[in-house]
């Protein structure tokens, strides 16, 4: 297939002396190599580069005033995101239980979430824990994404991002997580 037809065609008239032509054969191996290399490159760059996203659903702001049932405070866990990649958490009302300062690592945040979830489930007839995330002005976007991711991993459906209260900022200031 890769040979070119060089038979000269037809009868030779006029007795002209012609040099005998050889079949031209192109070696395509190198070309195929190159093509497959490029294919590999394109496959890898297109499929591995698909952007991923974490879904975030915020509570509807207008519905806050109606259709709401009171939630026992003992069921809620509040996470206050402070500066220097640290967060502070407490269960129930601010100040009722001693708040604890932890980091975002697997052994700290996730372990705490699992532990508290179990505790609250045990004391509230298996009802799941509600988590309130309050990012302070000195926390980073990464902190928020990490917290939401941990909540996804631990499978806590009931959570909300809420604006931080001045009381909570005071608490962060007291523990040195807010300047």
């Amino acid at each position: 297939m890769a040979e070119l037809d060089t038979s000269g065609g037809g009868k030779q008239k006029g007795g002209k002396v012609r040099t005998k032509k050889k079949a031209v054969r192109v070696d395509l191996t190198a070309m195929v190599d190159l093509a497959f290399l490029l294919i590999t490159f394109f496959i890898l760059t297109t499929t591995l580069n698909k952007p991923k996203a974490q879904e975030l659903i915020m509570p509807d702001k207008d519905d806050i005033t109606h259709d709401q049932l009171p939630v026992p405070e003992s069921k809620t866990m509040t996470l206050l995101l402070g500066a220097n990649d640290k967060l502070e958490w407490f269960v129930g009302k601010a100040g009722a239980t001693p708040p604890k300062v932890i980091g975002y690592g697997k052994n700290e945040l996730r372990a705490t979430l699992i532990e508290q979830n179990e505790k609250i489930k045990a004391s509230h007839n298996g009802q799941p824990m509600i988590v309130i995330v309050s990012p302070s002005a000195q926390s980073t976007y990464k902190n928020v994404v990490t917290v939401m991711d941990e909540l996804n991993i631990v499978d806590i459906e009931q959570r909300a991002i809420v604006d931080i209260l001045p009381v909570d900022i005071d608490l962060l200031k007291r523990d040195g997580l807010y300047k």
Partner: protein
Amino acid sequence: MPRVKVARKSTAIDMTAMCDVAFLLLTFFILSAKPKTADPIKADIPAAAISTTIPQTDFSTLLIAQGKVFFNVEGDDVRKETLRIMAEKYKMSFTPEEANQFAGVESFGVPMVQLHSFLAMSPRDRDKVPQPGIPVDTTNNNELFDWVHSARLANKLLHNKELKIGIKGDSQQVYPVVGMVIATLQKQKVDRFNLITALKSK
């Protein structure tokens, strides 16, 4: 005893068919590949273990880095229509040439008043010039609100689909700016959005 002679064959394999197939595949992949577009500002996106894929069309990305907000909506037609709606809102007019330029601009962050001069630049200059970001504040009438609203209108008009919104934030971005963008979206009843993340293991 006469030896059995094995006829020697040429070892050259005809590569033509293979070459055809390889180039056909190559053409397919090149055509289906979406060129990677450079963002006007560098954003180091945070990683998350649980994530979903985001759509390639009917999607708008809000890039947040260094306290600035950049806006992009997928699709040249949607972009053009968005600009038309925005021009109506702000009582500005854009020439067809400017509209065509705008359709090719991916992510941008200039206030409406600077848009004329921004579109007059060559694409190369546009990448170089520092962009101040789209004005956003806590009021009801900030420009980001209008951009997102216009893009949603345009997408609904052209594709009859709800525009999905993604937030691409820099890891080190302090939260209040992100919070302000989220509040702006919530003012127009957009309560679901995607936070664009990188992959990581659990």
